[in-house]
């Protein structure tokens, strides 16, 4: 029997791939069984995505073989992969923002009637798939208008539309809210029930234990272990993944709050349509404490962060740093008064991806001594500082001249943290500081924030990850529909209480 139940649907044997300077995959052999969810767990840069890109035909492996249903198979480009029933949802979505959902899904596998596109038939087919697997989506919506969670559904539909048997999901939960993640897991469940096999790439331990049937762990380009989720704990997985003993709980002393360092009074922000998105928000952060702002994504946190960091104008209210009233929409003034900002979107607001690390390290201070004198840059001072920061903040990079865009997400975040926190700061505003990062980097960033707190800095953490908020903050303000519904002490609150507040119920 060729298709005996034990034949894996996909097998890779000794896949090796080198990029200039790095061995991304070293003799990687994995297999995927029919109808299972295989979690591929590993830190950023462990080679998970490289392996999947090879399977999907985007990269050529230097050596190694594939088998599909036991038969040797060659995949030279995505076309071959699609033909073999392999679909991939990339971490950065491959959707054309200005196209409608239908156009995006049918692209490359168009439904035609003679020479013309048959959009109504495509729409029917998409709706049928969407009903079958519980992927609710408006087929005529323009993709750029859709929230990320829905865009992801479009990506999954795109794969299903091509009749995939093997679906690769690359860090699918990195951009999702907890609710969206649950919905995604339900969808994955529906898919495996109908015989689709899923490779789930992630570095989130909780999720792996929740959804995976089998776990393969990768580290530095190699498979370092395979386990059954029923027999391991989060802690075991973290240790395997990082290769050393990791502390998942943040060690910290009780906060010693002192004077008020940072104050936001009656802040109002309106959106383009003049709807109020930040509704008379007031809070204070004392030196030596961490205030967390929790809430389901989209309840005004992004706008609040933009307004208080000077990235957008507000429509009322005041921001005070250390007793000084800050001007509106003036990031430089805020920076010069001691604000550090770790932005939500590190690609857009944190780094200039095309610039080398050296320039990124001095983005806030390039115009000042010693980095420049009389308008002329002092390259040596910039390089010295960069090398020192790379060392101190453990940025993994071949040199200080590498473009920021070429680093992994975790290292990019370290560059931002290094730039922001190596200055004299009075207040740190960290918005989703660990989104998309691996365990090792998260541990590092949490420790750094706590260290700053203990040094007497006022720290504000905005995060939609409850675990993070509960682990590192001292007080938690919960935002709902642009308002702060309540502020509770982190030590005495519970997930349930926060969950209720996040849903808007006051007690």
């Amino acid at each position, binding site marked *: 029997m060729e298709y005996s139940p034990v034949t894996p649907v996909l097998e890779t044997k000794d896949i090796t791939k080198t990029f200039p300077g790095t061995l991304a995959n070293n003799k990687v052999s994995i297999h995927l069984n029919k109808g299972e969810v295989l979690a591929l767990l590993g830190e950023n840069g462990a080679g998970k995505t490289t392996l999947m890109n090879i399977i999907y035909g985007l990269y050529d492996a230097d050596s190694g073989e594939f088998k599909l249903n036991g038969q040797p198979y060659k995949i030279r*480009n995505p076309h071959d992969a699609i033909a073999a029933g392999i679909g991939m949802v990339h971490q950065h979505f491959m959707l*054309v923002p200005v196209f409608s959902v239908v156009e995006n899904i049918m692209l490359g*596998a168009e439904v*035609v009637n003679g*020479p013309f*596109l048959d959009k109504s038939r495509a729409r029917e087919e998409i709706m049928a798939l969407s009903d079958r697997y519980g992927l609710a989506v408006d087929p005529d919506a323009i993709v750029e208008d859709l929230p990320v969670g829905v865009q992801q559904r479009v990506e999954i539909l795109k794969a299903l539309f091509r009749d995939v048997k093997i679906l690769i999901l690359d860090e699918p939960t990195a951009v999702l809210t907890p609710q969206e993640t649950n919905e995604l897991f339900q969808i994955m469940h529906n898919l495996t029930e109908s015989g689709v096999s899923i490779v789930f790439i992630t570095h989130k331990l909780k999720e792996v234990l929740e959804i995976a049937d089998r776990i393969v762990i990768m580290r530095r380009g190699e498979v370092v272990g395979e386990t059954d989720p029923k027999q391991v704990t989060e802690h075991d997985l973290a240790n395997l993944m990082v290769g050393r003993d990791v502390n998942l709980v943040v060690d910290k002393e009780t906060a010693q709050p002192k004077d008020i360092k940072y104050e936001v009074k009656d802040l109002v922000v309106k959106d383009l349509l003049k709807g109020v998105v930040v509704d008379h928000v007031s809070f204070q952060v004392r030196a030596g404490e961490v205030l967390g702002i929790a809430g389901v994504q989209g309840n005004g946190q992004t706008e609040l962060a933009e307004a208080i960091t000077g990235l957008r104008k507000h429509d009322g209210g005041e921001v005070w740093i250390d007793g000084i009233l800050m001007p509106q929409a003036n990031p430089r003034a805020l920076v010069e008064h001691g604000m550090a900002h770790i932005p939500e979107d590190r690609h857009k607001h944190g780094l200039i991806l095309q610039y080398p690390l050296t320039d990124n390290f001095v983005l806030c201070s390039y115009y000042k001594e010693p980095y420049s004198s009389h308008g002329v840059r002092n390259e040596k001072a910039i390089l010295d500082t960069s090398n020192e920061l790379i060392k101190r903040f453990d940025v993994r990079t071949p040199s200080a001249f590498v473009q920021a865009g070429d680093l992994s997400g975790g290292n990019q975040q370290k560059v931002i943290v290094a730039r922001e926190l190596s200055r004299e700061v009075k207040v740190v505003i960290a918005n989703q500081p660990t989104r998309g990062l691996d365990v090792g980097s998260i541990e590092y960033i949490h420790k750094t924030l706590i260290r700053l707190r203990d040094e007497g800095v006022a720290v504000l953490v905005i995060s939609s990850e409850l675990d993070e908020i509960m682990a590192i903050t001292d007080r938690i303000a919960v935002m709902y529909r642009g308002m702060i519904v309540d502020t509770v002490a982190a030590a005495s609150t519970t997930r349930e209480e926060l969950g209720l507040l996040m849903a808007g119920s006051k007690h």
Partner: protein
Amino acid sequence: MTAAQSTLTVHQLRRPRWMVPAILTVVAIAIAIISYLLNPSVTEAVLGATIRFAVPLILGALCGIYCERAGIVNIGIEGQMLMAAFTAYMTNSWTGSLPLALLVGALTGALLGLFLAYISVALKLNQTIGGTVINILAVGITGFFYQVNTVTKGKFAPIPLGPLADIPLIGPVLFNNPPITYLTFLLVIITQIVFFHTRWGLRTRAVGEHPRAADTLGINVFKTRYVSTMIGGALAGLGGAFLTLEGVGLFERNMTNGRGFIALAVMIFGKWNPIGSMLAALLFGFTNAIQTQLQFMGINVPHQFIGMIPYALTIIVVSGFVGRSRPPAAEGTPYEKE
């Protein structure tokens, strides 16, 4: 505000795409009818001139649409038109065959399109420089080889379309034109259908917006860009040939006179959309025709001011009516496979 609500509001913000062009068209037709009742011969002359001015602009703009929708910025339209005007003219002079001359013109444009595609796709050079090279090359080559005493047997004559040509106003303006003019309007409709209702169009637009996404779906980005840029070049070539085979009937040095650049403005004004660009080109042509007419009528305003009308009107319309238009996202960036 939940995600669903915000999606809804964005939808409501989008104006229907056809609204502005439709309003402009209705207004234009109303004005034409009123002025025809007041003065038939001037109206006919102005509208006829509008079409003649508009045709090369439409062809140039279609060239821009084919290139830019696939992600290639083409500022060499001017050069493609000029070179094609020249080769078409010389072919006409040597062989006396107008259809052959037209074909040579289109081929000339297509070849220059191939050159631009090679520079942008294979060599991954800066596309603005590629286009500029074409422009400079065209001025130099045509200037060098052109002989002043070249003669031809004539140009394309108008073909009246049976009884349609006898309708007052519309007949002489729309249905009594030489062949390239008819072809141009046909090409507008074909391009509109091709880009928005065929597989090829969907893929080409995807390549211009998000080449990586297209690549992951098995679409050949490089080939698409070559083909689209060459088709565009052929259309610019037709626009050039129009000048020497149908419009002026002669070749003059640098006779395109900026039409290739105005065509780019027309394309942007028309939001990278064939029918939109056609309407924009007609508006441009109309203001040009009006300007000529005003000068005939001896209105006591310095002619430089009258000459500004088309440009001033464009700025007003673009800023006031059209709003921000957005070019294809991947325009001008060479695609690198990983």
